[in-house]
């Protein structure tokens, strides 16, 4: 299974946000980091892929199947999108909130298989101790993990995560990214995540796509992309790419003098 995005254009009303986006051949089991400054069009690209914003032209393919105009509900079975998280005050338990995500695309009745899938997902993300907790009582990091659980419980072919680590402390950033990476190794979906932290992107992603003002500036392996002068230019900073003693990539950024 391969995800391919070709010549995609989309926007809101007369305002075009995405100009001719092409990201070819994202093979299964690839973790793509979508990087770029605020308002680069990252969320719009995700919404277009998820079918929430209709494209004006271009195509999206999974394998050989063109899903550009697939109905939202059918598409939700194939592509799971996690929007940027906002708090929620619903009186639902963590278990229920993950179950409801699964039930959007399965039948009305809750069956054993549904319950197993919810339990497995919570387990895989280390959330089983929170299963009976109310979602409005969770900390920011826990709520973010539940949102990830709601996305991966549907076992989709493509997972889109919009800033999964925003507002999380270092421990939670690493644990969420590790969980996503583990999911990848278990079920081999395509994962795309919009990330602001370039070092986090370097550490976990297989491929980085640099977006600015709705145009793709670069697409490739992290060590290649992060070394490009475009990075500094795009973020309006000066950068050097270094390697730490352990061999990890490290982007050293500072404001231009």
């Amino acid at each position, binding site marked *: 299974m391969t995800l391919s995005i070709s010549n995609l254009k989309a926007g809101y009303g007369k305002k075009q946000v995405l100009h001719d986006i092409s990201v070819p051949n994202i093979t299964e089991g690839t973790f793509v980091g979508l990087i770029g400054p605020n308002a680069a069009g990252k969320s719009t690209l995700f919404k277009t892929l*998820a079918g*929430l914003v209709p494209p004006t032209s271009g195509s999206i393919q999974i394998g050989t199947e063109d899903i550009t105009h697939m109905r*939202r*509900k059918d*598409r*939700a*079975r194939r592509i*799971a*999108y*996690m*929007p*940027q998280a*906002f708090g*929620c005050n*619903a*009186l*639902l*338990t963590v*278990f*229920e*909130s993950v179950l*409801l*995500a699964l*039930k*959007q*695309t399965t039948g*009305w009745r809750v069956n054993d298989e549904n*319950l*197993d899938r*919810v*339990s*497995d997902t*919570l*387990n895989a993300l280390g959330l*089983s101790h929170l*299963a*009976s907790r*109310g979602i409005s009582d969770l900390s920011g990091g826990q709520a973010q993990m539940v*949102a990830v659980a*709601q996305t991966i419980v549907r076992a989709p072919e493509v997972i889109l995560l919009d800033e999964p680590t925003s507002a999380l402390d270092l421990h939670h950033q690493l644990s969420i990214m590790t969980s996503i990476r583990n999911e990848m190794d278990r079920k081999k979906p395509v994962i795309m995540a919009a990330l602001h932290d370039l070092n986090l992107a370097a550490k976990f992603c297989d491929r980085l796509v640099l977006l600015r003002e709705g145009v793709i500036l670069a697409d490739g392996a992290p060590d290649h992309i992060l070394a490009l002068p475009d990075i500094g230019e795009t973020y309006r900073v000066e950068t050097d790419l270094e390697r730490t003693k352990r061999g990890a990539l490290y982007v050293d950024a500072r404001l231009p003098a």
Partner: protein
Amino acid sequence: MTTDVNVTQMRQAYFAQTTRRYLMIAAVFGLLALSFFLDVATGPGKYSLSTVLDVFIDPLSHGVRLKVIVWDYRLPVAITAVLVGALLAVAGAQMQTILNNPLAEPFTLGVSAAASFGASLAIVLGVSVIPAVGPLLVTINAFVFAMLTCGFILFATRLKGVGSETMILFGIAIFFTFSALLALMQYMASEDQIARIVFWMMGSLSRASWEKISLGALLLALAIPFSLLRTWPMTALRMGEATAESMGVDVGRLRVEMLVCISLLAATAVSFVGTVGFVGLVGPHIARLLVGEDQRYFVPLSAIVGALVLSLTSLISKSITPGIIYPIGIITSLIGVPVFISIILSTRREKLS
């Protein structure tokens, strides 16, 4: 393996929770049945519970007079209380979900005020929006104005950039507009007409009839499966609009479908009994505290709690002063509000501790 233990525990916890919810629904339903029976058994004529039960089972067991009292006077009133309570509470529950606002209900969105204006128009001017309705003039006028208001709310939700806060502001605007128009009608009305308007607005179950009951029951019978079919998308909506959409829910369409359904329920309830505030708020609120917001339990329990509240109100309205039946609108607010506030405060304390 620890994993399997976790999975088993989680499933057991979920089953236990589900069982608790069904028991809760059954318990409140039991209370409703009790309240309903007491409501039928209470009235100006004092008859023992066993006598009323006899007439219940065999209408003519204690003569025609008792049959008329129980079957023609008390039963329609008691059933109307249950039905209208359920209709208002379901309408309130759904409004709160689709507008993501715990204050939304037919009263706060101006539907009741619009209905009152429609009723007053019929009372003062004898003007009907639908010709040749005869004795149902007031009810039908109230219904039409309630529907028009719901139509306006529906239209407003389709406008770009209208969020859930804006909707409540719209509701308040509608409320004030119709209150002003109502005041104008009262200003123009004769003393006798003013009395009728005021009485209508206070909300009364004495306008019960078997025709109205059949219509209300039919609507409820259609609305509950209609809502249950949309239970998963509606529960998803509680996670927020963006999250629901990302899960494949067509939020715009869901809103329209549900608002059409709610409009019918609210308009029917309000046109039957006049202004009964608060039931649409308190029913869903108590239901939420008891079973959470999984709509499979939340919507049916809202209906049952709403029915219980109005049934108890009916019972109380007859019991305060012997021989006098107070308007239910007064009772729901005077007794309901302190009870409601104490419930909110006590659960808050529980949560904090």
